[in-house]
Structures are given as C-alpha cells and as structure tokens.
C-alpha cells in the first residue's frame, strides 16, 4: 500500500518537476533565445554579401577601431586600479574600509546616462572646465578622451569587485612567508600573489571588457555621434538602425553579439577552471561579495 502511494507520489513529483522545467525554459526561450537568434537572422537574411559589405564600410571600420581603442585604454587602467584596490582592501585593516567598498561600487548603481552627464558638466562647453579647455584647444567631450572617461567610469568596479573576495579567501600567509624568506615586495607580488589570483583577475577582465565594448548610454552622452570620428560599435548600430538600414545595423549588432557569446564561453571556462583550482566557484562572487566583505 505505502509503496503504491510512494510510487504515485513520485510520478506526481516528476510531473511537477517537468512542468516547472518547461515553464522556466519557455520563459528563457522567449526572453533570451528568440532575441539572440533574431539578431543573426536579421543580419544574414539579406545574404552574406550584404552582411560582409555592411562591416567593411569606412564608418563601420572606424567604429570597430574606436571600440577596440577605447576598451584597450579603459580595461588596463581599471585592471591596475583593481589590483591596487584589492591589495589595499584584502590585505590591510583600516578605518573607512566599508565606505571605500561602497564608493568603489558606486558606478554600478548610477544610470549610464548620468555616467556620461557628469563628464559633460565638467568638460563640456558650458562645463566647469569648458572655457579653459576651449582656450587651450583641448577637446574632451565629443572626442575620444570623453569616450574613454565614460567607459572607465561604467566599468570601474569590475576587476576590483572580482579580486577583493578572491584575495580575501586566499589569505596572506603565503605572501608573508615569501617576505619573511627574503623576497622583495615586487617579487612576492609577481611570484606568489599573481599566480594565486590569475583566474579571478582574468574573470574580472573578461566582464570589464564586455561592458567596455558594449557600453551605450554613457558613451552616447559624451560622443556627439560624429560618424567616423566618435562612433563606437554600439553607437554605430543606433545610427544605422535610426536610418532604417536594418540589415547593416543587425550586421554590426551580430558582431557585438558574437563578442557577448565569446564572453559567456570564456567566463564559463574560467568558472570551471577556477572551481577546479580552488574547490569553489567564483561565479557568485559578483553577487555575494557584500556578504564576504
């Protein structure tokens, strides 16, 4: 009797499970799957030739180059900052640490439009430094430096936020041992710290880079949309789209989508690698960091 009930119950449980799985997958299919597929469909449905030619126009090439340039400056700078901040926060005790952590996090909670606005208010023509910059013929807003600044701002916390919990978890025993054995600070950092944090570091850089290359709102405010001059790839997508040149817009968008997919693959690989190396998962660091700190 009890066996029969048990069996009936387990069939019912399995049915409930399947219903839940189906509902979850259906939701993801509609909200993630279809949008993803449609980018490639819209990009390619006018043929490969149209696709290729949309990507090699002078404006498209300059947008690609500018995106690489901006990310190429912003990511290394935030990488250096991330290492310094993580070393400071994970290795020393001092007053005001939690305030510092909150301030580092700040750019994540600010609207992208405001991230651009603050630089316009300083460096723009009517900005605080505007007249001085104009007299000295330095252009920041509607030029590459503005794009770089806005990108640095929106990607500011990524590397630091990944590294801090990783370094806290590892602890400082190995570094202290190296120093006591006579290694210099730099040697200790390069030979002990860096190998220990390399996966966390790579993880942060991957996320930072994806955001740097894909940022739209903040750079939109400071760019001025000058074709061939201050248009990054996402801004170029917008311009083409607003000109009803959908195939070309989606062609450029598909390149950005491939970048996003590559980011997800790289991220997953690092997660698995990191899980092997540390016996834990780095994945939730981004969301669980506040618990640790």
């Amino acid at each position, binding site marked *: 009797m009890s066996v029969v009930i048990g069996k009936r119950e387990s069939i019912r449980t399995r049915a409930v499970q399947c219903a*839940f799985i189906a509902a979850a997958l259906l939701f993801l299919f509609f909200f993630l799957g279809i*949008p993803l597929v449609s980018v490639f469909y819209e990009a390619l449905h006018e043929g490969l030739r149209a696709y290729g030619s949309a990507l090699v126009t002078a404006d498209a090439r300059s947008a690609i180059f500018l995106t690489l340039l901006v990310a190429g400056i912003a990511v290394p700078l935030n990488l250096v900052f991330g290492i310094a901040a993580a070393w400071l926060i994970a290795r*020393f005790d001092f007053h005001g640490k939690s305030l510092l952590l*909150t301030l580092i996090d700040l750019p994540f909670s600010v609207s992208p439009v405001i991230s651009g606005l603050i630089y316009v208010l300083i460096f723009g023509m*009517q900005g605080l430094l505007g007249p001085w910059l104009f007299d000295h013929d330095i252009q920041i807003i509607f030029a590459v430096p503005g794009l770089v600044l806005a990108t640095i701002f929106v990607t500011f916390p990524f590397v630091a936020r990944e590294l801090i919990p990783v370094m806290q978890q590892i602890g400082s025993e190995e570094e202290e041992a190296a120093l006591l054995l006579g290694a210099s600070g730099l040697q200790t950092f390069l030979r002990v710290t860096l190998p220990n944090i390399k996966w966390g570091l790579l993880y942060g850089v991957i996320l930072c880079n994806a955001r740097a290359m894909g940022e739209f709102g903040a750079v*939109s405010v400071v760019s001025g949309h000058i074709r061939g001059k201050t248009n990054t790839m996402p801004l170029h997508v917008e311009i083409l789209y607003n000109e009803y040149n959908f195939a070309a817009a989606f062609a450029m968008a598909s390149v950005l989508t491939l970048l*996003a997919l590559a980011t997800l693959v790289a991220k997953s690989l690092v997660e698995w690698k990191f899980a092997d190396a540390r016996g834990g998962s780095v*994945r*939730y660091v981004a969301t669980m960091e506040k*618990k640790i700190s």
Partner: protein
Amino acid sequence: MLLKRNTVLPGFRLAGGFTVFYLSLIVLIPLGAMFVRASSLTWGSFWEIVTAPRVLASYKLSLGTAFAAASINAVFGFLVAWVLVRYPFPGKKLVDALVDLPFALPTAVAGISLTTLYAPKGWIGQFLEPLGLKVAFTPLGIVVALVFIGLPFVVRTVQPVLEEIEKESEEAAESLGATRWQTFRLVIFPCLVPSLLAGFAMAFARGLGEYGSVVFISGNMPMKTEITPLLIMTKLEQFDYPGATALGISMLAASFLMLLVINLLQWWSGKRLGRG
C-alpha cells in the same frame, strides 16, 4: 585612513594612495561636480524642474515599468533559479551560462532585437497584434526590455542561497510529516525571501537607470513613453544643462536610496543564511 594592525606586507601607502587618487579622479570629483553645478540653482527652480508635468510623467513611467519588470523577474527568476539548482535536465550547463546573456550583450543590441521582434510585423508582435496587444512603442515594450535586462540579477542572487540551504532542515521537516508544499512554504521559502528581495531590488534599480535597450522599443513620446534617463538626454541635447543636472541629482538620489536598500537586504540575507 588609519592603519589598525601591523603587518609585514608592504604597499599600504602605494596601493592606498593610488586607489584613493583614481577613485577621486574618476568617480568622486565628477559626481561632486554635478552637485557643485546644481548649487547654482535656487531651491525653487530646482523644485520646479524636477516636478514639471513632463518630468513627473517620466518618473511615473520609469518607476512603474521598472517595478512591473522586477516583479515579473522575481517570479520567473525564482523559477529559473529553482529549476537550475534542484532539477536535472539535459543542457542545464548551457542554460545556466545563457542566463548571463543580458549582462554580456550590449544594451543597444538587446534594444533593436526586442523592438524588431515585438513590432507589429515582428516574429512575436504579429501574434500579439490580433489580440489587441501592442508591445513595441508602448509602456509594455519598456517592461519587456527591462525584464530582459533584469533577469540575471534575480537568478544570480537566489541561486547561490538556494544551493547553500541545508538539506537537513528540509529532511527534518519531511520526516516530521510535512508535505512538500508545506516544506517549501515554511522551511525553504523564508530562507530565500531576503535574497529574492535583494534580487528584485537590484533588477528594479537597474531598470530605473536603464537607457540603451529602452530607447529603441519605447518610441520616446513625451508624457507617454519617455523614461527619465531619456529626458536627461533630451535636455542635454537642447543644452539645458541646469535641467539635466537637476534631473540627474533626483535620479542619483533614487539610486543611492536603492543602494542602501540593497545593502540592507544583502546583510539580512547573509544573516538569515548564517543562522539558518
């Protein structure tokens, strides 16, 4: 800053100095400059700007759509997290990785893709049109974009907590005769509430400030489908710097409030888990 504990580790001054310098240069001074800029406004004119009818309509729209999207994400994000943690199914790792797509995909790409899908002749829009449902270029479209953007926040805050819930308490409840639904309602769900609320708050905060994915699908009609970040953009384009600054300050205040709420919720979540 004051060093409390002696340590043999070097680099406190170097790392500290650089961190504070870079933080000030990139974040604190520019944000502070916005307040300096706003201080040239009188309180009356500030208030007039941030309570103008068009601005109030944008607040209502931004708050309403962000709230609706975060609520949808709370339900379905919870479901996705639950399924990913509890049930085995083929392709799970792939689905798990795909959940982060909205974090990785540039918002402009999400915007044009969703707009094309939900436009009256789009893949999804053509089925909704006969039902009288207009999505693209209506507030509903904004909700759709914000659901896309906010989904990973709920999944990624609930998922780790769900993984850490101790099986013992669940087994104890069941061996004491609780049904599955009772176990879920009385044992599992209370542990998850703080993280679910934190995920909701993050999705909501992100929705308030979101720009890239929304501008394409919203249609941007003043008073109807114009979100607050877009209004800031419009004021900037008209060189109305005081207006943009005042709105920026009001949005920043909302962000700080949300940041505080999220921090409190996460602290609560950590505490609940530590005890549980």
